[in-house]
């Protein structure tokens, strides 16, 4: 029938159009396709590998479908075998094909899931750069335990050292992600998750929360700077020059909900602040006082 041919054709046209669109529009800005660090790069490698393997199903299915539609259309009366409904060779092929492909990808899953475990440290203890991350409404607080400073909505680190993040939330479930450097991980109140990232060279990236968390969610993004050692010391000086202390009182003010909080520097932090934030919800250790949560709706 003619209309079927037309429809098949139009579908192909659309596919081609979409692909053209993808390449012409600026996919260049994709943090995932153009990674800036080894973690995303390996994750991308896995993505491409899996896509390639699966193209070996996609292409035969497409060819088979269009060929079958064309060759066995009713108007053509071709080789009609109404009783042909089983054939062990075909059955073997249609079970074995997917099994093999899934076998290969399954193997990749196991290998890469261990290799890309976000908790796995990327270097020895001495060289990693530690930052503690707290999700708030609707901003991110970064605590630098080794430098004794703290920053809102800006994450800077020396690019020659891998970043080792400890993450928690002082509000609802959120998800921390810097796509150019690696995948995401949830931030949950009363719990601590980890993420290890690394940047190839100095650069500026965007990080954000990807898990919807209320009205200010679209603005819950932050700048990430991987810096040369010299730039980083300079930046640290700037933070230390802020002369503001993030003590308990200041912290309790900070957590009230806001959209688009400006970058803010604290030259000193209450010791153990990160653990005391977690303790608010577990009740263990020395918890900070629990405030009445905000209405996020």
């Amino acid at each position, binding site marked *: 029938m003619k*209309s079927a041919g037309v429809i098949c054709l139009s579908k192909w046209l659309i*596919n081609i159009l979409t692909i053209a669109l993808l390449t012409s529009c*600026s*996919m260049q800005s994709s943090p995932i396709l153009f990674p800036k660090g080894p973690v995303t790069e390996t994750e991308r490698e*896995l993505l491409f590998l899996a896509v390639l393997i699966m193209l070996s199903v996609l292409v035969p299915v497409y060819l088979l479908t269009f060929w079958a539609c064309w060759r066995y259309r*009713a108007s053509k009366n071709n080789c*009609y075998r109404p009783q042909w*409904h089983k054939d062990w060779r075909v059955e073997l092929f249609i079970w074995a094909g997917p099994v093999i492909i899934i076998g290969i990808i399954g193997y990749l899953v196991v290998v890469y899931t261990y290799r890309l475990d976000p908790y796995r440290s990327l270097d020895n203890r001495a060289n990693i750069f530690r930052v503690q991350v707290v999700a708030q409404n609707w901003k991110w607080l970064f605590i630098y335990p080794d430098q004794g400073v703290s920053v809102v909505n800006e994450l800077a680190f020396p690019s020659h050292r891998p970043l080792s993040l400890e993450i928690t939330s002082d509000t609802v479930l959120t998800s921390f992600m810097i796509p150019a450097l690696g995948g995401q991980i949830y931030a949950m109140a009363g719990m601590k998750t980890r993420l290890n990232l690394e940047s190839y060279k100095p650069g500026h990236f965007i990080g954000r929360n990807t898990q*919807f968390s209320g009205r200010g969610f679209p603005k819950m993004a932050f700048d990430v700077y991987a810096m040369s050692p010299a730039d980083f010391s300079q930046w640290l000086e700037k933070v230390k020059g802020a002369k503001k202390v993030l003590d308990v009182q200041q912290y309790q003010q900070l957590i009230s909900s806001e959209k688009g909080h400006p970058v803010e520097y604290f030259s000193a932090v209450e010791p153990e602040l990160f653990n005391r934030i977690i303790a608010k919800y577990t009740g263990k250790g020395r918890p900070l006082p629990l405030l009445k949560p905000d209405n996020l709706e």
Partner: protein
Amino acid sequence: MLGKLTFDALPFYSWVAMGGAAITVLAVVLAILAVTWLGKWRYLWSEWFTSLDHKRIGVMYIILALIMLVRGFIDAIMMRAQQAIALNEGGYLPPEHFEQIFTSHGTIMIFFMAMPFLTGLINVIVPQQLGTRDVAFPFMNSASLWLTAAGAGLVGISLVLGRFSTAGWTGYPPYSGIDYSPGVGVDYWIWALLVSGVGSTLTGINFITTILRCRAPGMELMKMPLFVWTAFCTSILMAFAFPALTVAAGLLGLDRTLGMHFFTNDLGGNMMNFANLLWIWGHPEVYILILPAFGIYSEVTATFSKKRLFGYRSLVYATAAIALLSFTVWLHHFFTMGSSPNINAVFGVATMIIAVPTGVKIFDWLFTMIRGRIVFHPSMLFTIGFIVTFVIGGITGVLLAIPPVDYLVHNTTFLVAHFHNMLIPGALFGYFAGVQYWFPKAFGFKLNQFWGKMVFCFWIVGFYLAFMPLYALGLLGMPRRLEQYTEPDWQPFLIVAAIGASFVLVGIFSVFMQFYISIRERNLNRDLTGDPWDGRTLEWATSSPPAPYNFAVIPEVNDIDAFWAMKQKGKAFLCHQHYDPIIMPKNTSAGVLVGLFGFLLGFACVWHIWWLALAGVFGLVVVITVRSSQEHSDKVITAQEIRETEQKRQAVLLSADKTVNNGSLV
């Protein structure tokens, strides 16, 4: 007296809210006026609302689904319009509306569009394919329908009184807890799910029983049509998965209403327990949605390739394997919670294993087409469109099942594109194909094919335009549920997606246009034989529309394609000398009352109107007790009435040039 319900609940706080409320109220008022003006209340009540006929219940389910499809789509196109212009605060929707809209869109599409649609199709067709006269529990069937409608009503009324949830269709705590979402929205969501969830569980139980106990003599399990098999697996999933949702939503309700701490941040609550429970239901749910569609594709492919289904056994085992495996993979929805690589690897591999039986099915359909005589009926077009589009969704699904890849694209529009890829060309196209295919069976005339093709063209083009860009946007790092953004690179893709949504709009328009044109031209397209497509399974043996009892004499089955075999042997349209009286359930208003009290109970619990909640429970208990202990809930259709009906059918068959065999000779 009215609990939390005060004048503040009225939507006078914004134009968007007033608009939504006005349209809802207007639509209801217009519908009521129209029925009154046509004088059809009595007819609707006695022939439809109180009917226990599985075919009518099925049709009502599908009408509900179509109404909710429109409602859900209005939400969708509003979001698409917003995101197309929302660069740098350019949108027209304030966040609190955008949030309600994505939540109601997801909730409506899953619970009140897809679920009723597939339940309706199962209701109309499965008993006929089984060669039986009714479902196992007709009254329970009616109660399920009205409970589903009650749930939809709760979502609907939230537009007028109060607001709907903003927590997304998954309603994750602690955001959805009372601390962070003190409004009534989440309660509406919870009660809509609880009330309709009971309906779905009961439907599952009903069809498990029907399929196991009510088959025509000779129909062994391995001779059941594939749609029955998929309906069977879906029913099992419904009966076993929905309780998990009921528990999850119920515990969240306890947290919110009675101040408990199952999922709160503090005092020992743990939100990941909610995520576990939700997805222990949620993953089987996606197979609840898709398996019946797979069944429809199987029936359509065989019929319109004029060929026996290839690899029937493979298809059955694949279906059963999918149903079983679907309970073992739920953790893939939160690979990013920081679980160990052991756990993620196990669940990643388990998820992928499901791709094997799914792939097998695709090939079985293709080999059914090969060496057949393919007729491109609209339902077949949907099937072909499904095959080529679904493989893309399958591939992105496997990608999402690779934990490290999921770390990158979880919570982005890549995920949104993936699940729409499964839900639209996968599930919804199947339901549409089912409508194109079975409409003549339900109503006695065929649908206009030109408009059927229009439906297909606009939906498929619209789908590609609306969702392929979202895959790209996901790779650009765009999170889902985003009300506005600052990346100019995203906008072109979002504009294309909005154009795609307007194609879908024309597609939806075509759906209704097709009904309108077909009803207008019904006399040209009468299906006199009951078998318009030269079908293979037993539903085509009945008249179109079937008599209330479907089969005057229960058929004997001894082949997979039972009706096809009968036609081959010349035993298809038997005329019998002798008829036995048939006992059928009487109509009852109890089902409607169950729905009504369910609605009142839900509404009362949302607004803390406790006396009304008690009244609702009391009403439910009374109605169910009274109806269940009724002595005379059946009526008898006498042999005389049956003979008259059947003789009329034979006259019509003869007029359509079908030879009617005299039953006594055979």
